[in-house]
């Protein structure tokens, strides 16, 4: 599948934003992070900023962005519509959480409940995003069990790294948050490793033979249906050399998981400027890593339509 820049940017940016928002809501309600005005304002502005910029960028790849509001209407059948509805709904408790935190310096009681609801809706939004891909039977690399937990955990992980950085900068660092950061990286790493193993060892039931309803030992294209690349070949036929993918996976392993994990452990045992710098580097590294991971998620996805254009398996 063609890795469209706007979709990669949207899913990673809003993913991190929702991850941060959910952790702010939960840790705020639990009293683990302070209900101090400027800290809350910073955290929520960053979270909602990432979500907003991400959502906005998702409309850039549309043929008719001015009709984007229509995408909220078909939530009964469409995961894309459900994602849109949940994304909009999340702003309500998130906004109320911000009111409590910034104006009343409180994250308990009613404001705490808003924090919990915001967290639940944020996670549901990310789950809806993952289900857009998970529900496509056409792409085996997406339509499997590991897509949903991968998306959700990477959202939590990138959000946790941002929260870790913000609490460090404000001098509110504590072991629960840093422990959450380390744990989320470890779980996300395992999930992504299992996902990559899974797609390397399994493939779709669809074959060139089932695609053209003719049995044969070997089916190869003879004359092309058209002389130059069409929409299908550009959108679905995007292929990345195996060697290239291996390198990008290695970059993902290092920048998304290994380096942030190492630095987060360092942060756990240190404090002051060292901890702040380590947090910032870990966060920046995860941004690069998650963009590469998302690019691979698209580039390694093989659509069944490629069976008509010479692919022997998908």
């Amino acid at each position, binding site marked *: *599948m063609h890795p469209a820049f706007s979709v990669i940017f949207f899913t990673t940016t809003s993913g991190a934003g929702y991850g941060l928002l959910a952790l702010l809501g939960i840790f705020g309600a639990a009293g683990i992070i302070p209900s101090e005005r400027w800290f809350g304002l910073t955290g929520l502005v960053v979270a909602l900023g990432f979500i907003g910029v991400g959502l906005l960028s998702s409309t850039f*790849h*549309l*043929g*008719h*962005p001015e*009709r*984007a509001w*229509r*995408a*909220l*209407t*078909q939530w*009964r*059948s*469409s*995961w*894309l*519509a459900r994602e*849109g509805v949940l994304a909009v709904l999340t702003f309500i408790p998130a906004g109320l959480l911000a009111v409590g935190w910034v104006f009343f310096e409180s994250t308990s009681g009613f404001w705490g409940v808003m924090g919990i609801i915001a967290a639940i809706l944020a996670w549901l939004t990310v789950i809806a995003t993952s289900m*857009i891909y998970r*529900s*496509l*039977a*056409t*792409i085996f690399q997406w339509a499997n069990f590991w897509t949903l937990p991968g998306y959700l955990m990477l959202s939590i992980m990138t959000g946790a790294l941002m929260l870790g950085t913000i609490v460090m900068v404000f001098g509110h660092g504590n072991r629960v948050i840093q422990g959450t950061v380390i744990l989320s990286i470890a779980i996300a790493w395992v999930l992504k490793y299992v996902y990559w193993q899974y797609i390397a060892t399994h493939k779709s*039931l*669809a074959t*060139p033979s*089932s*695609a*053209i*309803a*003719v*049995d*044969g*030992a*070997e*089916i*190869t*294209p*003879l*004359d*092309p*249906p*058209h*002389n*130059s*690349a*069409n*929409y*299908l070949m550009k*959108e*679905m036929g995007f292929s990345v050399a195996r060697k290239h993918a291996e390198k990008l996976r290695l970059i993902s392993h290092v920048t998304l998981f290994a380096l942030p994990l190492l630095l987060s452990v360092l942060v756990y045992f240190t404090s002051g400027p060292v901890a702040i710098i380590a947090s910032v580097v870990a966060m920046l590294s995860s941004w690069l890593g998650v963009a590469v991971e998302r690019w691979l998620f698209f580039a390694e996805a093989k*659509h*069944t*339509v490629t069976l*008509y254009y010479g692919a022997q398996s998908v």
Partner: protein
Amino acid sequence: MTSLPHATNKKLGLVIDLDTCVGCHACATNCKQWNTGGHMAPLTDKNPYAKDPDGVWFNRVHSFEVKRGKTNPGLTVNFPRSCLHCENAACVTVCPTGASYKRVEDGIVLVNTDKCIGCKLCSWACPYGAREYDENEGVMKKCTLCIDRIYNETLEIEDRQPACVLTCPAGARHFGDLADPDSDVSKLVANRAGRPLMPELGYKPTNSYLPPRARRVEGTDIGAQNKLEAVSPRKGFLSWVDNMLSR
């Protein structure tokens, strides 16, 4: 509504004969000609007269070489690919705007281009590559089963068929109601063991493809003698010469 109907009154669709298709692209060409002025009009092109022309087509005719082991002869299969108007049309359910829909009355899958936002998700959801994005218009386009021909009362009754079916010089394309077991298309599917494409994905396509008939390789396959023997005259002058010389 992008929820699929529980059942449709008819299942209008195509039956395509892979045995007789000659791969001439007439279906694709006539489809483009009719539909660029029809329900989904226009079917725009980019660089139509330049080096890399690219445009919206509802029909694409592939051709494949099929190897079938050492004992069976190989096949060349011409394969026209278009919308199959699936029962489980995921292209409809994934649509966030309600632009995609499946009609209850005849099962035809259509796009309302006034509602389409051009998110392309439906084309991702289609296993068969039936939907193509119109870059000029910013919306998705697809086969309408010539909805503007088959119900068109200004046309002669024999012309109320999809453009691809009417134009096929090999008679390889057939149009009808596949929900009716007594229709000509249903009988074709039953007699020729018609097959759906990629049934393992669960889309339940309405269109059916008739596989190539068994190849007739030996003389006896067509009722000829397996071995030709020299004809000897039984009477007349040559017979007498033959008898004399055979002594």
